[in-house]
């Protein structure tokens, strides 16, 4: 249906943006601030649409969808994928920290290689 072209473009752009986010380097301070602002706006929107569900339907009509419910479903899909991307990034950065921690621990507990072999081999 040609009338749904608007929402299709919006959704494809959203998923494309998430794919880009997956590949570019980790977010800086601005990225974190933007994410928090988005979260607040999302909450505000949720409150507004609970009180005024007919507004949601109007917006849905604007982008070529029949029902507000469908718009919520689409938004949910974008949010779920976005959340997966964010979770993955967090996991990667945490893994790096854990690795560094474990490596430092392992090396600290091992005998100093300079003392092991210097005055003739001494068993630890």
């Amino acid at each position, binding site marked *: 249906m040609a009338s749904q072209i608007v929402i299709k473009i919006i959704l494809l752009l959203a998923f494309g943006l998430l794919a880009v986010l*997956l*590949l570019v380097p980790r977010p800086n301070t601005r990225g974190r601030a933007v994410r928090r602002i988005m979260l607040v706006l999302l909450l505000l929107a949720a409150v507004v649409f609970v009180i005024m569900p007919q507004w949601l339907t109007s917006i849905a009509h604007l982008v070529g969808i029949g029902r507000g419910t469908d718009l919520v479903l689409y938004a949910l899909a974008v949010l779920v994928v976005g959340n997966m991307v964010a979770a*993955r990034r967090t996991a*990667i950065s945490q*893994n*790096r920290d*854990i*690795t560094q921690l*474990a*490596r430092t*621990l*392992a*090396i600290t*507990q*091992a*005998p*100093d*290689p*300079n003392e*092991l*072999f*210097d005055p003739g*081999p001494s068993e*630890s």
Partner: protein
Amino acid sequence: MLTDAWLVVPLFNEGPVVGDVIRDALGTFPKIVCVDDGSSDDSANIARKAGAVVVSHPINLGQGAALQTGLSYALQDRAANYFVTFDSDGQHQVSDAAAMVERLRAEPDVDIILGSRFLDDEVEAGALKRLVLKTAVRFERFSTKLDVTDTHNGLRALNRHAASTIHIHQNRMAHGSEFLREIATHKLSYREHPVHVVYTDYSRAKGQSLWNSVNILFDLMFG
């Protein structure tokens, strides 16, 4: 005896073979560090009794992380000039490793020597494995612009400059590719050296499945 070289051996559940591998190598490399990556068997004790220094990860982190830990540990030794990464399952030859160190010594302008299975004919791999390895080589040659013939060989010899410049972040299996990327990024000078890899029944049974190629690709793209 190569007293200015360290053999860096990642170790994960290789109890049945690691003792022989260490004893075999000690004659040439008196300094061996085994990085036990949270083995659930007795590998660490066996390696220690065989005469290696054992550095133990408190949790399993992956082979790439173990290599980096071993290099970081060996770099602390002020008398060490050369660092060789070596597999614990007995597929590498000590003579190949020693030859690579001697070559680094003879050619001071070379930072890293990469073992290659494909420079001579002594390859004992199945047709499918060969195809996957060759495809990986083509991919790496394209993405790093390095002129290499074997990209996933665990046998490498590094001088101090290379060992302290390269840092492996890929904890799991993608570190083979990361080594090459680090070489390309830091413009290290490298050579390949023909090595003979022995695929025993033991190493074949433990060998990487082809599924791992998919994992490696994803780690490199999204990791």
